């Protein structure tokens, strides 16, 4: 761990994509939170560094009932879905407000998100008007997955590299400010469109747009959500649930020389830590929507503060100091070291005896976490051990009585309850890892509810590092099928 710095880290973004600057890397994504100037000015007051205007184009008519969400274990909006279209406000109203915002907030980034019909003239016109209004940059919405795509716009463009390249080139003919192309994830390889945008001359990229989704079905009415008068339509999925998908696509783009451009990362970002991860994979700025819709603009305060504190602790002075540092830590599977071995280690002092690691290992992994500390530890074959089902049925058949006297209560809950072991949890309930069988998969450490109770510890195999590629060099990668 480096020495914490004695100066405050600098969160400023300068000349992103060849010309966009903002007080910090946190931008609001093109969405309902950036629908009008009044909102964006309040967002800037709250601390946001930039805003991508709700997509400007020929005004649309929206349906009512536009959102639906996935709640998980009592947590609301783990995933979020919308069928709202681009701005339903007249173009000149949006442009007039851009001018107003820029006049009042010259240091903040205001990006015009654009979507018009696929003609050179239409794009030239909207580009010129947006820049005349004072936009610091343009984001081409080639990603909207619903409604607009049926009209030949949005993801209908973003899913066809040739269209994306052509329109980007049209925009570049006219644009004086940086041009970002927003990528749709609803395509088998996101790099195809990233490369097309780069060929078309884009200055930067934004990724990812929302993912095609049906969030769920009302089990009373049997109508999928959101319900628009008895029918639903697929929407765009976002929120914390999509972050891992977004991170993967960001990595794919940034690790590909033909795709890589200055990238504004989007997808499930709700905290400073999420933002740090996107920047570590190469993003220059990040965009946020769902979290701001859930909690309001105020969340940016902790994002800035938290990111600065982490940077300070890690010794990073600027965003560029750590941008992309994790990119080369992602590789293809064939380059991973086959001779690296870790095994699970359970901290007996921390274990609370829930035994979730035991059942997870038995049913979902490799049957090497056992409850045999009292009955006698036994390494080796699975048949040596009682099965989880037999253990449970033994408990069900046991005779238990309520401890009614003080002595009985002491025996059940007192210091020496459980009868064995020096640990807070009775020894019989503290699982034991058979390291000879543990494959080091991490499952137990994922299910353990107690922080740092199960850690994965490296054990030496005594072998030099060797990858799959190295091991199979000169041999066929896949064994020939044996026909008998």
């Amino acid at each position, binding site marked *: 761990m480096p020495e914490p710095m004695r100066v405050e880290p600098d969160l400023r973004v300068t000349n992103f994509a060849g010309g966009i600057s903002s007080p910090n890397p946190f931008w609001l994504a093109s969405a309902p939170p950036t629908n009008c100037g009044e909102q964006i000015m309040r967002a800037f007051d709250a601390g946001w560094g930039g805003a991508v205007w709700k997509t400007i184009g020929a005004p649309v008519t929206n349906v009512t009932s536009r959102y639906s969400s996935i709640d998980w274990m009592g947590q609301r909006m783990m995933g979020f879905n919308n069928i709202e279209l681009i701005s339903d406000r007249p173009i000149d109203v949006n442009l007039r407000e851009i001018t107003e915002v820029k006049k009042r907030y010259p240091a903040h980034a205001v990006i015009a998100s654009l979507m018009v019909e696929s003609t050179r003239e239409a794009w030239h016109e909207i580009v010129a008007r947006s820049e005349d209004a004072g936009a610091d940059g343009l984001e081409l919405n080639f990603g909207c997955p619903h409604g607009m795509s049926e009209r030949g716009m949005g993801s209908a463009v973003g899913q066809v590299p040739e269209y994306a390249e052509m329109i980007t080139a049209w925009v570049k003919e006219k644009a004086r400010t940086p041009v970002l192309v927003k990528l749709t994830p609803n395509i088998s390889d996101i790099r195809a469109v990233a490369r097309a945008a780069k060929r078309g001359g884009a200055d930067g990229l934004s990724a990812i747009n929302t993912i095609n989704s049906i969030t769920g079905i009302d089990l009373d009415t049997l109508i999928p959500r959101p319900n628009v008068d008895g029918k639903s339509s697929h929407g765009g999925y976002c929120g914390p649930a999509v972050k891992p998908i977004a991170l993967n696509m960001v990595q794919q783009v940034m690790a590909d020389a033909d795709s890589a451009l200055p990238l504004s990362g989007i997808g499930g970002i709700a905290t400073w830590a999420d933002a740090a991860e996107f920047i570590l994979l190469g993003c220059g700025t990040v965009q946020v929507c769902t979290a701001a819709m859930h909690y309001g603009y105020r969340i940016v305060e902790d994002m800035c503060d938290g990111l600065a504190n982490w940077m300070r602790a890690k010794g990073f002075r600027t965003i560029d100091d750590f941008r992309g540092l994790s990119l080369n830590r992602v590789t293809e599977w064939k380059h991973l070291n086959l001779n690296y071995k870790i095994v699970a280690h359970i901290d007996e002092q921390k274990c609370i005896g829930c035994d979730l690691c035991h059942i997870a290992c038995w049913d979902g992994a490799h049957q090497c976490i056992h409850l045999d500390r009292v009955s006698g530890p036994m390494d080796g074959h699975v048949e040596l051990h009682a099965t989880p089902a037999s253990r449970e049925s033994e408990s069900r058949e046991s005779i*238990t009585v309520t401890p009614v006297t003080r002595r009985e209560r002491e025996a059940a809950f007192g210091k020496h309850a459980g009868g064995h072991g020096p640990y807070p949890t009775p020894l019989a*309930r503290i699982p034991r890892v058979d390291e000879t069988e543990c494959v080091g998969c991490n499952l137990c450490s994922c299910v353990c509810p107690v922080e740092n109770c199960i850690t994965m510890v490296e054990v030496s195999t005594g072998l030099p590092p060797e990858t799959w590629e190295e091991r199979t060099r000169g041999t066929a990668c896949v064994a020939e099928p044996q026909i008998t």
Partner: protein
Amino acid sequence: MRYFQSLILYVSHGFDEDLNLSSMFVEDREIRERFAALHAPLTAQAAVVEANRCLNCFDAPCMVACPTHIDVPGFIRRIANDNLRGSARKILESNVLAGSCSRVCPVEVLCEGSCVMHRYDRPPIQIAQLQRHAMDFFHRSGEPLLLQPAAEIGLRVACVGSGPASLACAAELRRQGARVTVLERRALPGGLNTYGVADYKLSTAESLLEVELIRGMGVEFRLNTAVESSAQLAALEAEFDYIFLGVGLGAMQRLNIPGEEAHAIQRMHQTSGVLNALELIAAYKTGHITRLGGKIIVVGAGNTAVDAAVAAKRLGAESVTILYRRAETDVTAFDFEFAHARHEGIEFLWRRLPVGIRTSEDDRILLDTLAVRQGESGLETVPGSELTLHCDTVIPAIGQSSLMEMLREFSGVVMQQGRVTIDPDTGETSNRKFYAGGDCTNGGREVVDAVADGKRAALGILKAHCATKEAAHA
């Protein structure tokens, strides 16, 4: 008295198929108000949030700690996943009186006391409240316990007593196709659940609702039917293949001090004198006593003493004092009960023993007491430490006696220290036609222990029945 009329109506009809038990008992409104439930039920949303806190432990300690081994993570998961019917049926699989258990169980020393959250520095999962949530849903739904009657297996069993042990035994036997008859000496079934549990935990109506569900399975109830003589017993033995004894304990123990008998309260409207804790609880639960004034002294510091003391306070007593011959640290009531008593404003007088009861000049009660200290051979009274307490009602709560007299009639059923001796795995007594469980075998534990005993005995009887049938075929 309204309640009394309904009771007469009820008794005169016996158990008419058309009459619903819980509608026969009319609650006294004043009592209901004074004994409002101690804990508010969880709202639907709070229940889901609480259910989602559960870690779903493997071979869960809460399940092990429950004498009826309810699959706690299993039913909680069903609440979290919006499957309340499944949750309730999961609970009922293990414990047919789960509704009352969710209200009266001392969960601090059972499931919730064993929750791993204690070692995680978090409050334990509110298992009792979640169970109540599921059971309340089930009771509101009006669904019967048995959707399809089991095929008759040609087994007839009598359950003597209609408390939790007998009810659990009867339900399990009926579920597996036996014909069961429950015999109860009182007017209402349910035993201590109906007559002996503090009303702010479990109301009489709630207890009767559960009995009604068991009756709905096809269990026959014979009320006002005491089994006391050897002739009655012989008739029972002739009519039934097996007899389950779930008779509980006998009357509360007397203080055995001068004046106790002479001051005993005889009529229900009279409240000055000596009235034992269970009599007091039964009287207010059935609406016979709705008010209690003056100064009350409860003798004893067990859970029933706390129930009686709190009841006296809620019935309007000016002051209630618990008199105990030992120290605060020796209190036999559960810690949460003791804390509850303090919370309700009960006072305590430690290390004192009642030695006599007299009438004062103003026609109230004088309770003579002596201080007690630890001597070399146990507790001893301190000479010259006389203290006379002026009060209106003395409530002995020093435990129940066993039903030795009655049980002596049951030939071949061996007893030890006032308890029926059983094989703990099967509930079988030393007479193979008799099984037993609950307080008459354990000397007085919790409802959930009685339920576990009753169910184990039912399984023991079924096993014996199968063995007999197989032997007959061989």
